[in-house]
């Protein structure tokens, strides 16, 4: 069982001294309000050099605001922005060593592909020979060799996306900012582009800061995810960290499907919830209300190899076949108003129909207890 005291999240966010060198960008106390409307609460964030870090959250979570503040398009209401240890908050956007890939691509309609890609170097005063050559090479990098002379209007969505990326890469920025760049693409193309982006990031060995609201996308490509909601960072961690060890109800619900139950932590640290009392519980936990989160895939319908499991007698209310996975909605006999969601791979020999009685085995080593702090 993992236990997560909300306060622990704070610890994980604070910089570990030994890693300061790896930090390329730091936000300290950055916040943004429009009048009385708070869009981003006081935020601290460290971005490490060379990582693919994703700001993930629903709309209104503040993720785009952070990106715009970093890029220089929005002034923060407070706080400082440190790039390699030096304050850059006062620098205007066009002087910052970051480049952005915009959601609507923002390609200049009156220019060809090559002119669009080379524009960053052209702004720096590079002669035509230099910028056009470099632009050609960057187009090769993103797999658009030979597209140089094409007008923007004749490109498909995916191609525009790659031109926008090439345009952002040519100046060799220290950080590439990506503002929900794949939002306008259809599902298949999106998946291809996700792999493509990750690939490119490794090739050019640059820090990518990616914004999205799609949790599957975030999990696919990120080295680290910054989960946000209502203007605040909820949790930071690798995709696995956050998926298996959410530190809040929000985090637990945001990714995939989860079973959540109210619980109480007793003075002996034992956790008591709908299906029983788990003891020994967690050490160092504070007494009071908590939440127990159980991933559906950690509920087995046949006795498995788990060291400790909690068994619950249930009736199958409904079952769904979804290709690789079979889902079961179970009603515990103890309290038929509750529901348990279990998932197993569909190629098991044994499967259960609606109405049958089963025994659900909850793997205790894999449940999360979330103690929501006063936040």
């Amino acid at each position, binding site marked *: 069982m993992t236990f997560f005291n909300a306060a622990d999240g704070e610890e994980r966010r604070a910089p570990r001294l030994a890693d300061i060198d790896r930090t390329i960008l730091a936000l300290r106390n950055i916040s943004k309000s429009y009048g009385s409307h708070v869009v981003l609460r006081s935020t601290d964030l460290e971005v490490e050099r060379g990582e693919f870090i994703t700001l993930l959250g629903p709309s209104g979570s503040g993720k785009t605001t952070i990106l715009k503040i970093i890029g220089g398009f929005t002034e923060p209401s407070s706080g400082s922005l440190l790039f390699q240890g030096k304050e850059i908050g006062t620098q205007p956007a*066009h002087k910052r060593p970051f*480049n952005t890939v915009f959601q609507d691509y923002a*390609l200049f309609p009156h220019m060809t592909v090559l002119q669009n890609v080379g524009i*960053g170097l052209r702004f720096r005063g590079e002669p035509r020979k230099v910028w056009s050559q470099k632009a050609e090479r960057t187009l090769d990098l993103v797999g658009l060799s030979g597209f140089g002379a094409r007008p923007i209007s004749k490109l498909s969505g995916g191609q525009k996306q790659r031109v926008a990326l090439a*345009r952002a890469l040519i100046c060799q920025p220290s950080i590439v900012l990506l503002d929900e760049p794949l939002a306008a693409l259809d599902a298949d193309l999106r998946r291809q582009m996700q792999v493509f982006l990750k690939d490119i990031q490794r090739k050019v060995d640059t820090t990518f800061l990616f914004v999205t609201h799609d949790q599957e996308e975030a999990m696919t490509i990120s080295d680290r995810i910054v989960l946000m909601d209502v203007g605040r960072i909820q949790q930071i961690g690798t995709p696995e960290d956050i998926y298996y060890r959410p530190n809040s109800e929000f985090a637990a619900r945001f990714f995939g499907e989860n079973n959540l139950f109210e619980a109480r932590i007793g003075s002996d640290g034992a956790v008591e919830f709908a299906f029983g009392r788990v003891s020994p519980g967690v050490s160092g936990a504070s007494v009071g209300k908590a939440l127990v989160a159980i991933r559906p895939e950690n509920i087995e319908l046949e006795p498995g190899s788990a060291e400790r499991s909690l068994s619950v007698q249930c009736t199958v209310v409904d079952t769904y076949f979804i290709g690789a996975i079979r889902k079961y909605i179970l009603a515990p006999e103890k309290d038929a108003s509750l529901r348990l969601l279990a998932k197993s791979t569909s190629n098991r020999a044994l499967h259960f129909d609606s109405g049958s009685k089963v025994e659900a085995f909850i793997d205790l080593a894999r449940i999360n207890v979330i103690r929501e702090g006063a936040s």
Partner: protein
Amino acid sequence: MTSIWSQRLLDAVLFVFAAVLLVVLYSPLALSLVYSLIPVENGILDWAHPSVGPYLRMWDDPLIASAVRTTLLVGSVSVILAVILGVACALFVTSRLAVHTWLIEALVFMPFLLPPIVTGLSLLIYFDAVGIPRGTWTIICGHTLFVLAVIYKLVSDRLRALPRSLFEAAADLGGNGVQVFTIIVWPLIQPVVITAAILAFALSFDETLITAFLAGTNMTLPVRLWAMMRVGFSPSINALVTIVIMASAAIAVIVSARIRREQSEQ
């Protein structure tokens, strides 16, 4: 349900109505063309002797020639000034710097929306109070203010149609203000500026009510024509008038074609 026949009847009636009105609208212009080619004696048209004489004699009159020159000068200078001021206002209003845009728009549209007589007399009184004598420059001033609204409206509409991200991208890629304007913004608004300039030139060319207040000895063509008309008419006016009509028609067609092309491209 309405029957097909009643629809057809409605359309036919409307068509006739519109056609009649069209004839009425164009009759002054068509007749002017006729009068320039067919000599008139006491109201009787001498169809037997059409002649392009009036067209050739047009330039003999020094007053007319000077008026045409003045009109062209005033038109060009006013349009250039209005473009500079109008584009500046449009850029400001649609940029990140924008503040209290209602005030700027109210000021820009005022000379165009108020009755020309008010604009004309207010400028006359103002120039007199400030000590500027009536002349070509006062006319230019009046025309610039008058066409400013047209330039501003067309350019600001175009700028508003551009996605904000374009400007952010330009800054993001390292362009400073001047670069963003010359390399990104100007090429994108240039077609509209040209269309607006042509339209403004046509409006300036025809402007009479304001100009009459502001003209000194140098008059624009419409004002000169008015002065001549009070005295009597001569065929040379008709010829001139026909040319003006033709030029206006050409300009109108060009402008509407350009506007339609702009709209379909967006």
